[in-house]
Protein backbone atom coordinates (compact mmCIF):
# COMPACT_ATOMS: atom_id res chain seq x y z
CA UNK A 1 0.00 0.00 0.00
CA UNK A 2 2.75 2.45 0.89
CA UNK A 3 4.48 1.68 -2.37
CA UNK A 4 1.32 2.34 -4.26
CA UNK A 5 0.87 5.59 -2.40
CA UNK A 6 4.42 6.58 -3.16
CA UNK A 7 3.94 5.82 -6.83
CA UNK A 8 0.77 7.88 -6.82
CA UNK A 9 2.59 10.73 -5.11
CA UNK A 10 5.26 10.58 -7.77
CA UNK A 11 2.67 10.57 -10.53
CA UNK A 12 1.05 13.51 -8.85
CA UNK A 13 4.34 15.33 -8.93
CA UNK A 14 4.83 14.74 -12.66
CA UNK A 15 1.30 15.78 -13.51
CA UNK A 16 1.68 18.75 -11.21
CA UNK A 17 4.74 19.86 -13.16
CA UNK A 18 2.91 19.76 -16.47
CA UNK A 19 -0.01 21.66 -14.95
CA UNK A 20 2.44 24.15 -13.55
CA UNK A 21 3.95 24.85 -16.96
CA UNK A 22 0.60 25.45 -18.50
CA UNK A 23 -0.74 27.49 -15.62
CA UNK A 24 2.44 29.53 -15.57
CA UNK A 25 1.66 30.59 -19.12
CA UNK A 26 -1.91 31.41 -18.19
CA UNK A 27 -0.83 33.42 -15.18
CA UNK A 28 1.76 35.32 -17.20
CA UNK A 29 -0.92 36.30 -19.70
CA UNK A 30 -3.32 37.27 -16.96
CA UNK A 31 -0.83 39.34 -15.03
CA UNK A 32 0.12 41.49 -18.00
CA UNK A 33 -3.06 41.56 -20.10
CA UNK A 34 -5.59 41.03 -17.27
CA UNK A 35 -7.29 38.51 -19.52
CA UNK A 36 -8.09 34.87 -18.81
CA UNK A 37 -7.14 33.06 -21.97
CA UNK A 38 -9.88 30.51 -22.55
CA UNK A 39 -8.05 29.26 -25.64
CA UNK A 40 -5.08 28.14 -23.57
CA UNK A 41 -5.96 24.46 -23.86
CA UNK A 42 -5.88 24.70 -27.62
CA UNK A 43 -2.42 26.23 -27.59
CA UNK A 44 -1.37 23.28 -25.46
CA UNK A 45 -2.92 20.95 -28.02
CA UNK A 46 -1.17 22.74 -30.89
CA UNK A 47 2.11 22.44 -29.04
CA UNK A 48 1.63 18.68 -28.84
CA UNK A 49 0.74 18.32 -32.52
CA UNK A 50 3.54 20.51 -33.82
CA UNK A 51 6.06 18.67 -31.75
CA UNK A 52 4.64 15.34 -32.91
CA UNK A 53 4.79 16.25 -36.59
CA UNK A 54 8.20 17.83 -36.38
CA UNK A 55 9.54 14.64 -34.83
CA UNK A 56 7.59 12.22 -37.02
CA UNK A 57 7.67 13.87 -40.41
CA UNK A 58 10.85 15.88 -40.31
CA UNK A 59 12.81 13.68 -38.01
CA UNK A 60 13.56 16.37 -35.44
CA UNK A 61 15.16 15.00 -32.31
CA UNK A 62 12.44 15.04 -29.62
CA UNK A 63 13.88 17.86 -27.54
CA UNK A 64 14.42 20.04 -30.57
CA UNK A 65 10.88 19.26 -31.69
CA UNK A 66 9.57 20.49 -28.37
CA UNK A 67 11.55 23.72 -28.58
CA UNK A 68 10.59 24.39 -32.19
CA UNK A 69 6.97 23.77 -31.42
CA UNK A 70 7.17 26.31 -28.61
CA UNK A 71 8.58 28.86 -31.00
CA UNK A 72 5.83 28.25 -33.55
CA UNK A 73 3.13 28.60 -30.92
CA UNK A 74 4.82 31.72 -29.60
CA UNK A 75 4.21 33.35 -32.94
CA UNK A 76 0.67 32.02 -33.15
CA UNK A 77 0.12 33.71 -29.80
CA UNK A 78 1.57 36.94 -31.12
CA UNK A 79 -0.77 36.85 -34.11
CA UNK A 80 -3.78 36.19 -31.87
CA UNK A 81 -2.82 39.12 -29.66
CA UNK A 82 -2.45 41.54 -32.53
CA UNK A 83 -5.60 40.47 -34.35
CA UNK A 84 -8.00 39.91 -31.50
CA UNK A 85 -6.80 41.24 -28.19
CA UNK A 86 -5.27 44.56 -29.20
CA UNK A 87 -8.74 46.20 -29.47
CA UNK A 88 -9.18 45.73 -25.73
CA UNK A 89 -6.36 48.20 -25.13
CA UNK A 90 -7.04 50.69 -27.88
CA UNK A 91 -10.60 51.27 -26.71
CA UNK A 92 -12.10 49.73 -29.84
CA UNK A 93 -14.42 47.48 -27.83
CA UNK A 94 -16.76 48.69 -25.16
CA UNK A 95 -17.22 45.81 -22.77
CA UNK A 96 -13.65 44.68 -22.40
CA UNK A 97 -14.00 41.90 -19.87
CA UNK A 98 -16.83 40.21 -21.72
CA UNK A 99 -15.22 40.69 -25.10
CA UNK A 100 -11.99 39.12 -23.88
CA UNK A 101 -13.84 36.12 -22.46
CA UNK A 102 -15.93 35.53 -25.57
CA UNK A 103 -13.15 36.10 -28.07
CA UNK A 104 -10.72 33.70 -26.41
CA UNK A 105 -13.50 31.18 -25.93
CA UNK A 106 -14.44 31.59 -29.58
CA UNK A 107 -10.82 31.06 -30.58
CA UNK A 108 -10.74 27.87 -28.58
CA UNK A 109 -13.76 26.52 -30.45
CA UNK A 110 -12.24 27.54 -33.74
CA UNK A 111 -8.81 26.05 -33.06
CA UNK A 112 -10.27 22.84 -31.70
CA UNK A 113 -12.37 22.26 -34.78
CA UNK A 114 -9.55 23.28 -37.04
CA UNK A 115 -7.39 20.64 -35.41
CA UNK A 116 -10.16 18.10 -35.78
CA UNK A 117 -10.36 18.92 -39.46
CA UNK A 118 -6.64 19.09 -40.18
CA UNK A 119 -5.29 16.38 -37.88
CA UNK A 120 -8.34 14.12 -37.67
CA UNK A 121 -9.95 12.69 -34.56
CA UNK A 122 -7.41 9.86 -34.14
CA UNK A 123 -5.18 9.72 -31.13
CA UNK A 124 -1.43 9.78 -31.57
CA UNK A 125 1.60 9.42 -29.44
CA UNK A 126 4.85 11.31 -29.86
CA UNK A 127 8.12 9.39 -30.13
CA UNK A 128 9.56 8.81 -26.72
CA UNK A 129 12.39 10.88 -25.35
CA UNK A 130 14.12 8.01 -23.68
CA UNK A 131 13.15 4.35 -23.56
CA UNK A 132 13.27 1.99 -20.64
CA UNK A 133 12.45 2.35 -17.00
CA UNK A 134 14.41 3.26 -13.92
CA UNK A 135 14.00 1.42 -10.68
CA UNK A 136 14.52 3.00 -7.32
CA UNK A 137 14.10 0.42 -4.60
CA UNK A 138 10.91 -1.30 -5.56
CA UNK A 139 9.47 1.62 -7.54
CA UNK A 140 9.88 1.57 -11.27
CA UNK A 141 9.20 4.62 -13.36
CA UNK A 142 9.49 4.97 -17.11
CA UNK A 143 12.44 7.04 -18.23
CA UNK A 144 10.13 9.11 -20.36
CA UNK A 145 8.31 10.29 -17.29
CA UNK A 146 11.55 11.18 -15.57
CA UNK A 147 12.83 12.98 -18.62
CA UNK A 148 9.62 14.91 -19.08
CA UNK A 149 9.65 15.96 -15.44
CA UNK A 150 13.23 17.09 -15.72
CA UNK A 151 12.50 19.08 -18.85
CA UNK A 152 9.40 20.62 -17.27
CA UNK A 153 11.50 21.69 -14.31
CA UNK A 154 14.08 23.16 -16.65
CA UNK A 155 11.43 25.15 -18.53
CA UNK A 156 9.91 26.31 -15.30
CA UNK A 157 13.19 27.45 -13.85
CA UNK A 158 14.05 29.15 -17.12
CA UNK A 159 10.75 31.01 -17.01
CA UNK A 160 11.26 32.03 -13.42
CA UNK A 161 14.77 33.25 -14.17
CA UNK A 162 13.63 35.18 -17.22
CA UNK A 163 10.78 36.82 -15.36
CA UNK A 164 12.63 37.31 -12.13
CA UNK A 165 16.10 38.29 -13.21
CA UNK A 166 16.25 39.58 -16.75
CA UNK A 167 15.48 43.10 -17.76
CA UNK A 168 12.72 41.99 -20.09
CA UNK A 169 11.14 40.02 -17.27
CA UNK A 170 11.23 42.97 -14.95
CA UNK A 171 9.61 45.03 -17.69
CA UNK A 172 6.82 42.48 -17.91
CA UNK A 173 6.31 42.64 -14.17
CA UNK A 174 6.40 46.42 -14.25
CA UNK A 175 3.60 46.50 -16.83
CA UNK A 176 1.62 43.97 -14.84
CA UNK A 177 1.89 46.08 -11.70
CA UNK A 178 1.16 49.48 -13.19
CA UNK A 179 0.54 49.93 -16.88
CA UNK A 180 0.53 53.69 -16.77
CA UNK A 181 3.67 53.99 -14.68
CA UNK A 182 5.39 51.63 -17.09
CA UNK A 183 4.44 53.83 -20.02
CA UNK A 184 5.83 56.85 -18.17
CA UNK A 185 9.09 54.99 -17.68
CA UNK A 186 9.28 54.52 -21.43
CA UNK A 187 8.11 50.91 -21.64
CA UNK A 188 5.78 50.29 -24.55
CA UNK A 189 2.94 48.33 -22.93
CA UNK A 190 1.70 47.02 -26.28
CA UNK A 191 5.00 45.27 -26.90
CA UNK A 192 4.83 43.74 -23.45
CA UNK A 193 1.34 42.46 -24.22
CA UNK A 194 2.70 40.72 -27.28
CA UNK A 195 5.60 39.26 -25.41
CA UNK A 196 3.46 38.04 -22.53
CA UNK A 197 0.84 36.46 -24.75
CA UNK A 198 3.47 34.86 -26.95
CA UNK A 199 5.47 33.53 -24.04
CA UNK A 200 2.34 32.34 -22.25
CA UNK A 201 1.28 30.49 -25.38
CA UNK A 202 4.72 28.94 -25.72
CA UNK A 203 4.53 27.65 -22.16
CA UNK A 204 1.19 26.01 -22.91
CA UNK A 205 2.76 24.49 -26.00
CA UNK A 206 5.64 23.19 -23.90
CA UNK A 207 3.15 21.41 -21.65
CA UNK A 208 1.48 19.79 -24.64
CA UNK A 209 4.71 18.85 -26.36
CA UNK A 210 6.06 17.25 -23.20
CA UNK A 211 2.93 15.25 -22.48
CA UNK A 212 2.98 13.87 -26.05
CA UNK A 213 5.09 10.78 -25.40
CA UNK A 214 3.34 9.95 -22.13
CA UNK A 215 -0.30 10.46 -22.88
CA UNK A 216 -2.21 10.60 -26.12
CA UNK A 217 -2.52 13.49 -28.54
CA UNK A 218 -5.95 14.37 -29.88
CA UNK A 219 -7.80 17.57 -30.82
CA UNK A 220 -9.68 17.97 -27.55
CA UNK A 221 -6.76 17.01 -25.35
CA UNK A 222 -6.59 20.56 -23.97
CA UNK A 223 -10.05 20.54 -22.44
CA UNK A 224 -9.12 18.95 -19.13
CA UNK A 225 -5.69 20.54 -18.57
CA UNK A 226 -7.03 24.02 -19.26
CA UNK A 227 -9.59 23.60 -16.53
CA UNK A 228 -6.81 22.46 -14.21
CA UNK A 229 -4.90 25.60 -15.08
CA UNK A 230 -7.93 27.68 -14.20
CA UNK A 231 -8.05 25.95 -10.85
CA UNK A 232 -4.38 26.63 -10.32
CA UNK A 233 -4.40 30.30 -11.17
CA UNK A 234 -7.43 30.89 -8.96
CA UNK A 235 -5.96 28.85 -6.14
CA UNK A 236 -2.59 30.52 -6.42
CA UNK A 237 -4.03 33.99 -6.85
CA UNK A 238 -4.66 35.39 -10.31
CA UNK A 239 -1.38 36.67 -11.68
CA UNK A 240 0.85 35.36 -8.93
CA UNK A 241 3.73 33.28 -10.26
CA UNK A 242 4.88 31.87 -6.96
CA UNK A 243 1.31 30.98 -6.04
CA UNK A 244 0.86 29.31 -9.39
CA UNK A 245 3.72 26.87 -8.88
CA UNK A 246 2.76 25.98 -5.33
CA UNK A 247 -0.87 25.55 -6.32
CA UNK A 248 -0.02 23.22 -9.22
CA UNK A 249 1.95 20.92 -6.98
CA UNK A 250 -0.80 20.93 -4.38
CA UNK A 251 -3.36 20.15 -7.04
CA UNK A 252 -1.32 17.37 -8.61
CA UNK A 253 -0.85 15.70 -5.24
CA UNK A 254 -4.37 16.29 -4.02
CA UNK A 255 -5.74 14.60 -7.11
CA UNK A 256 -3.42 11.64 -7.13
CA UNK A 257 -3.63 10.94 -3.44
CA UNK A 258 -7.20 12.08 -2.97
CA UNK A 259 -8.49 9.53 -5.43
CA UNK A 260 -6.54 6.76 -3.74
CA UNK A 261 -7.75 7.67 -0.32
CA UNK A 262 -11.36 7.79 -1.44
CA UNK A 263 -13.11 4.73 0.05
CA UNK A 264 -14.89 3.69 -3.14
CA UNK A 265 -12.19 3.31 -5.78
CA UNK A 266 -14.23 3.70 -8.96
CA UNK A 267 -15.94 6.79 -7.71
CA UNK A 268 -12.66 8.00 -6.28
CA UNK A 269 -11.19 7.97 -9.76
CA UNK A 270 -14.23 9.73 -11.16
CA UNK A 271 -14.18 12.41 -8.49
CA UNK A 272 -10.47 12.99 -8.94
CA UNK A 273 -11.15 15.80 -11.35
CA UNK A 274 -13.70 17.41 -9.11
CA UNK A 275 -11.30 18.03 -6.24
CA UNK A 276 -9.57 20.95 -7.89
CA UNK A 277 -12.83 22.40 -9.12
CA UNK A 278 -14.17 22.39 -5.60
CA UNK A 279 -11.05 24.25 -4.54
CA UNK A 280 -11.73 26.79 -7.27
CA UNK A 281 -15.33 27.34 -6.28
CA UNK A 282 -14.52 27.70 -2.61
CA UNK A 283 -11.57 30.01 -3.18
CA UNK A 284 -13.59 32.25 -5.49
CA UNK A 285 -16.33 32.53 -2.92
CA UNK A 286 -14.23 32.92 0.17
CA UNK A 287 -11.03 34.63 -0.91
CA UNK A 288 -11.05 35.70 -4.55
CA UNK A 289 -7.45 36.88 -4.29
CA UNK A 290 -6.36 33.25 -3.97
CA UNK A 291 -4.15 31.66 -1.38
CA UNK A 292 -1.04 33.56 -2.39
CA UNK A 293 -2.50 36.32 -4.51
CA UNK A 294 -1.19 39.83 -4.33
CA UNK A 295 -4.28 41.77 -5.23
CA UNK A 296 -7.64 41.51 -6.84
CA UNK A 297 -7.39 42.83 -10.35
CA UNK A 298 -10.19 43.62 -12.68
CA UNK A 299 -9.68 45.26 -15.98
CA UNK A 300 -11.43 48.58 -16.34
Amino acid at each position, binding site marked *: MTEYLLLQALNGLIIGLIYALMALGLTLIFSVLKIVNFAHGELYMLGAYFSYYLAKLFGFPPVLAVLSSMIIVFFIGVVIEVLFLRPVYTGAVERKDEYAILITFGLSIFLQNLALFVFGPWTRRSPSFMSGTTSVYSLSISNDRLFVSALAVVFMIATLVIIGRTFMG*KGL*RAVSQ*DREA*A*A*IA*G*INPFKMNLLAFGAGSALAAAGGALIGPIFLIFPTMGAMPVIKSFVIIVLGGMGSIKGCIIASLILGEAESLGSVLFPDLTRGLAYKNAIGLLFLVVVLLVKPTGLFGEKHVRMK
Partner: protein
Amino acid sequence: MSLEVKDVFAGYYADINILQGVSVSAEKGRITIVIGANGVGKSTLFKVIYGFLKPHSGKIIYNDEEITGTNPYTISKKGISYIPQRRNIFPYLSVEENWEMGAWIFRKDKKRMKQRIKANYERFPTLGSKRKTDAGSLSGGEQRMVEIGRALMVDPDLILVDEPTAGLAPVVAKEIYSKLKQLNRVENKTILLVDQNIRQAMKIADYIYILELGKNKTQGSKAAFETDLKAMIKDWLF
Protein backbone atom coordinates in the same frame (compact mmCIF):
# COMPACT_ATOMS: atom_id res chain seq x y z
CA MET B 1 12.27 78.25 -23.71
CA SER B 2 11.97 74.64 -22.75
CA LEU B 3 8.31 73.60 -22.80
CA GLU B 4 5.46 75.61 -24.17
CA VAL B 5 1.79 74.77 -23.84
CA LYS B 6 -0.17 76.93 -26.24
CA ASP B 7 -3.88 77.56 -25.86
CA VAL B 8 -4.88 74.02 -25.01
CA PHE B 9 -8.48 72.86 -24.86
CA ALA B 10 -8.92 69.37 -23.50
CA GLY B 11 -11.33 67.10 -21.66
CA TYR B 12 -12.77 63.64 -21.66
CA TYR B 13 -15.79 64.52 -23.78
CA ALA B 14 -15.71 66.44 -27.03
CA ASP B 15 -17.89 69.20 -25.62
CA ILE B 16 -16.62 69.30 -22.06
CA ASN B 17 -13.36 71.13 -21.78
CA ILE B 18 -11.65 70.86 -18.45
CA LEU B 19 -8.89 72.97 -19.95
CA GLN B 20 -10.33 75.95 -21.78
CA GLY B 21 -7.44 77.62 -23.46
CA VAL B 22 -4.55 77.17 -21.07
CA SER B 23 -1.11 78.48 -21.95
CA VAL B 24 1.84 77.72 -19.75
CA SER B 25 5.55 77.70 -20.39
CA ALA B 26 8.36 76.23 -18.39
CA GLU B 27 11.54 78.13 -18.96
CA LYS B 28 14.87 76.39 -18.83
CA GLY B 29 16.49 76.20 -15.44
CA ARG B 30 13.45 77.50 -13.60
CA ILE B 31 10.95 76.03 -11.24
CA THR B 32 7.59 77.01 -12.64
CA ILE B 33 4.51 76.29 -10.57
CA VAL B 34 0.89 76.09 -11.59
CA ILE B 35 -1.65 76.61 -8.85
CA GLY B 36 -5.40 76.94 -8.69
CA ALA B 37 -8.35 75.52 -6.84
CA ASN B 38 -9.02 71.84 -7.30
CA GLY B 39 -10.71 70.80 -10.46
CA VAL B 40 -9.35 73.64 -12.52
CA GLY B 41 -7.53 71.07 -14.61
CA LYS B 42 -4.02 71.05 -13.26
CA SER B 43 -3.62 67.28 -13.46
CA THR B 44 -5.40 67.24 -16.80
CA LEU B 45 -2.76 69.63 -18.08
CA PHE B 46 -0.02 67.09 -17.35
CA LYS B 47 -1.99 64.25 -18.84
CA VAL B 48 -2.20 66.26 -22.03
CA ILE B 49 1.49 67.15 -22.05
CA TYR B 50 2.54 63.56 -21.47
CA GLY B 51 0.28 62.11 -24.15
CA PHE B 52 -2.25 60.30 -21.99
CA LEU B 53 -5.00 62.59 -23.24
CA LYS B 54 -5.22 64.13 -26.71
CA PRO B 55 -6.16 67.81 -26.60
CA HIS B 56 -9.13 69.02 -28.65
CA SER B 57 -7.04 71.92 -29.80
CA GLY B 58 -3.84 73.72 -28.96
CA LYS B 59 -0.19 72.79 -29.18
CA ILE B 60 2.57 71.50 -26.98
CA ILE B 61 6.05 72.45 -28.06
CA TYR B 62 9.24 71.19 -26.52
CA ASN B 63 12.56 72.67 -27.61
CA ASP B 64 11.03 73.94 -30.84
CA GLU B 65 9.54 70.55 -31.67
CA GLU B 66 5.82 69.97 -31.58
CA ILE B 67 5.01 66.97 -29.38
CA THR B 68 1.23 67.26 -29.19
CA GLY B 69 -0.35 63.82 -28.87
CA THR B 70 2.90 61.84 -28.73
CA ASN B 71 2.72 58.49 -26.88
CA PRO B 72 3.79 58.55 -23.23
CA TYR B 73 6.44 55.90 -23.83
CA THR B 74 7.94 57.98 -26.61
CA ILE B 75 7.93 61.25 -24.72
CA SER B 76 10.27 59.91 -22.07
CA LYS B 77 12.90 59.58 -24.78
CA LYS B 78 12.76 63.29 -25.44
CA GLY B 79 14.16 64.21 -22.05
CA ILE B 80 10.90 64.84 -20.19
CA SER B 81 10.04 62.88 -17.08
CA TYR B 82 6.70 62.81 -15.33
CA ILE B 83 5.81 62.15 -11.72
CA PRO B 84 2.03 61.84 -11.50
CA GLN B 85 -0.01 62.56 -8.41
CA ARG B 86 -1.23 59.06 -7.72
CA ARG B 87 1.18 56.46 -6.43
CA ASN B 88 2.97 55.08 -9.40
CA ILE B 89 5.83 52.94 -8.26
CA PHE B 90 5.98 49.24 -9.14
CA PRO B 91 5.01 47.91 -5.70
CA TYR B 92 6.40 44.39 -6.10
CA LEU B 93 9.72 45.40 -7.63
CA SER B 94 12.58 46.40 -5.37
CA VAL B 95 13.80 49.96 -5.08
CA GLU B 96 16.68 49.23 -7.37
CA GLU B 97 14.52 47.39 -9.89
CA ASN B 98 12.18 50.35 -9.95
CA TRP B 99 15.09 52.53 -10.90
CA GLU B 100 16.26 50.05 -13.50
CA MET B 101 12.84 50.36 -15.11
CA GLY B 102 13.41 54.08 -15.30
CA ALA B 103 16.38 53.26 -17.50
CA TRP B 104 14.26 51.19 -19.90
CA ILE B 105 15.00 53.32 -22.92
CA PHE B 106 18.75 52.80 -22.60
CA ARG B 107 18.61 49.32 -21.09
CA LYS B 108 21.50 48.07 -23.21
CA ASP B 109 23.86 50.56 -21.61
CA LYS B 110 24.51 48.86 -18.28
CA LYS B 111 27.33 51.19 -17.37
CA ARG B 112 25.21 54.25 -17.65
CA MET B 113 22.47 52.54 -15.72
CA LYS B 114 24.82 51.70 -12.87
CA GLN B 115 26.05 55.26 -12.78
CA ARG B 116 22.58 56.72 -12.64
CA ILE B 117 21.53 54.33 -9.90
CA LYS B 118 24.60 55.29 -7.92
CA ALA B 119 23.72 58.94 -8.35
CA ASN B 120 20.27 58.17 -7.00
CA TYR B 121 21.68 56.58 -3.87
CA GLU B 122 23.71 59.72 -3.38
CA ARG B 123 20.61 61.86 -3.76
CA PHE B 124 18.53 59.66 -1.47
CA PRO B 125 20.94 58.17 1.06
CA THR B 126 18.11 56.80 3.21
CA LEU B 127 17.23 54.37 0.43
CA GLY B 128 20.72 52.90 0.41
CA SER B 129 19.84 50.28 2.96
CA LYS B 130 16.61 49.38 1.20
CA ARG B 131 17.79 48.60 -2.28
CA LYS B 132 16.33 45.07 -2.19
CA THR B 133 13.10 46.04 -0.44
CA ASP B 134 9.84 45.93 -2.38
CA ALA B 135 8.94 49.50 -3.15
CA GLY B 136 5.36 48.85 -2.09
CA SER B 137 6.37 48.29 1.50
CA LEU B 138 8.17 51.62 1.88
CA SER B 139 6.71 54.65 3.61
CA GLY B 140 4.85 57.25 1.60
CA GLY B 141 7.75 59.66 1.57
CA GLU B 142 10.23 56.98 0.55
CA GLN B 143 7.93 55.89 -2.27
CA ARG B 144 7.91 59.45 -3.56
CA MET B 145 11.70 59.42 -3.49
CA VAL B 146 11.75 56.19 -5.45
CA GLU B 147 9.52 57.83 -8.03
CA ILE B 148 11.65 60.92 -8.25
CA GLY B 149 14.71 58.73 -8.56
CA ARG B 150 13.08 56.73 -11.35
CA ALA B 151 12.17 59.91 -13.19
CA LEU B 152 15.81 61.01 -12.94
CA MET B 153 17.22 57.83 -14.47
CA VAL B 154 16.98 59.18 -18.01
CA ASP B 155 18.72 62.38 -16.91
CA PRO B 156 15.83 64.51 -18.09
CA ASP B 157 16.04 68.22 -18.77
CA LEU B 158 12.46 68.79 -17.72
CA ILE B 159 10.51 67.14 -14.92
CA LEU B 160 6.74 67.40 -14.60
CA VAL B 161 5.70 67.01 -10.98
CA ASP B 162 2.05 66.69 -9.95
CA GLU B 163 1.16 67.36 -6.29
CA PRO B 164 4.23 65.61 -4.91
CA THR B 165 3.19 65.85 -1.27
CA ALA B 166 -0.52 65.05 -1.35
CA GLY B 167 -1.28 62.82 1.63
CA LEU B 168 2.19 63.12 3.16
CA ALA B 169 3.01 64.40 6.63
CA PRO B 170 4.25 68.03 6.71
CA VAL B 171 7.80 67.05 7.73
CA VAL B 172 8.08 64.62 4.84
CA ALA B 173 6.55 67.15 2.50
CA LYS B 174 9.21 69.67 3.45
CA GLU B 175 11.93 67.18 2.62
CA ILE B 176 10.43 66.46 -0.80
CA TYR B 177 10.31 70.16 -1.62
CA SER B 178 13.90 70.63 -0.58
CA LYS B 179 14.88 67.72 -2.85
CA LEU B 180 13.08 69.35 -5.75
CA LYS B 181 14.77 72.62 -5.06
CA GLN B 182 18.12 70.89 -4.92
CA LEU B 183 17.46 69.22 -8.26
CA ASN B 184 16.84 72.59 -9.76
CA ARG B 185 19.58 74.59 -8.12
CA VAL B 186 22.33 71.97 -8.07
CA GLU B 187 21.55 69.75 -11.03
CA ASN B 188 19.99 72.49 -13.10
CA LYS B 189 16.78 70.59 -13.90
CA THR B 190 13.84 72.49 -15.27
CA ILE B 191 10.77 71.73 -13.19
CA LEU B 192 7.11 72.28 -13.89
CA LEU B 193 5.19 71.75 -10.68
CA VAL B 194 1.45 71.59 -10.25
CA ASP B 195 0.45 71.92 -6.65
CA GLN B 196 -2.25 72.54 -4.14
CA ASN B 197 0.18 72.97 -1.28
CA ILE B 198 0.56 76.58 -2.23
CA ARG B 199 2.60 77.85 0.67
CA GLN B 200 5.33 75.26 0.28
CA ALA B 201 5.38 75.28 -3.50
CA MET B 202 5.64 79.07 -3.49
CA LYS B 203 8.83 78.84 -1.48
CA ILE B 204 10.73 77.02 -4.19
CA ALA B 205 9.07 78.66 -7.19
CA ASP B 206 10.66 81.03 -9.67
CA TYR B 207 7.62 81.70 -11.78
CA ILE B 208 3.95 81.22 -11.03
CA TYR B 209 0.82 80.58 -13.04
CA ILE B 210 -2.60 80.80 -11.50
CA LEU B 211 -5.45 78.99 -13.23
CA GLU B 212 -9.13 79.42 -12.68
CA LEU B 213 -11.74 77.04 -14.08
CA GLY B 214 -9.54 75.78 -16.85
CA LYS B 215 -8.25 79.20 -17.90
CA ASN B 216 -5.21 81.28 -17.17
CA LYS B 217 -5.95 83.89 -14.57
CA THR B 218 -2.66 85.54 -13.78
CA GLN B 219 1.01 84.83 -13.92
CA GLY B 220 4.20 86.43 -12.84
CA SER B 221 7.51 86.02 -11.09
CA LYS B 222 7.65 85.05 -7.47
CA ALA B 223 8.21 88.60 -6.26
CA ALA B 224 4.89 89.69 -7.68
CA PHE B 225 2.94 87.34 -5.43
CA GLU B 226 5.01 86.94 -2.36
CA THR B 227 3.81 90.04 -0.59
CA ASP B 228 0.35 88.84 0.20
CA LEU B 229 -0.38 85.21 -0.37
CA LYS B 230 -3.64 85.35 1.51
CA ALA B 231 -4.97 88.20 -0.54
CA MET B 232 -4.07 86.21 -3.63
CA ILE B 233 -5.93 83.13 -2.42
CA LYS B 234 -8.91 85.24 -1.50
CA ASP B 235 -8.82 86.75 -4.87
CA TRP B 236 -9.04 83.52 -6.78
CA LEU B 237 -11.22 81.73 -4.31
CA PHE B 238 -13.99 84.21 -3.95
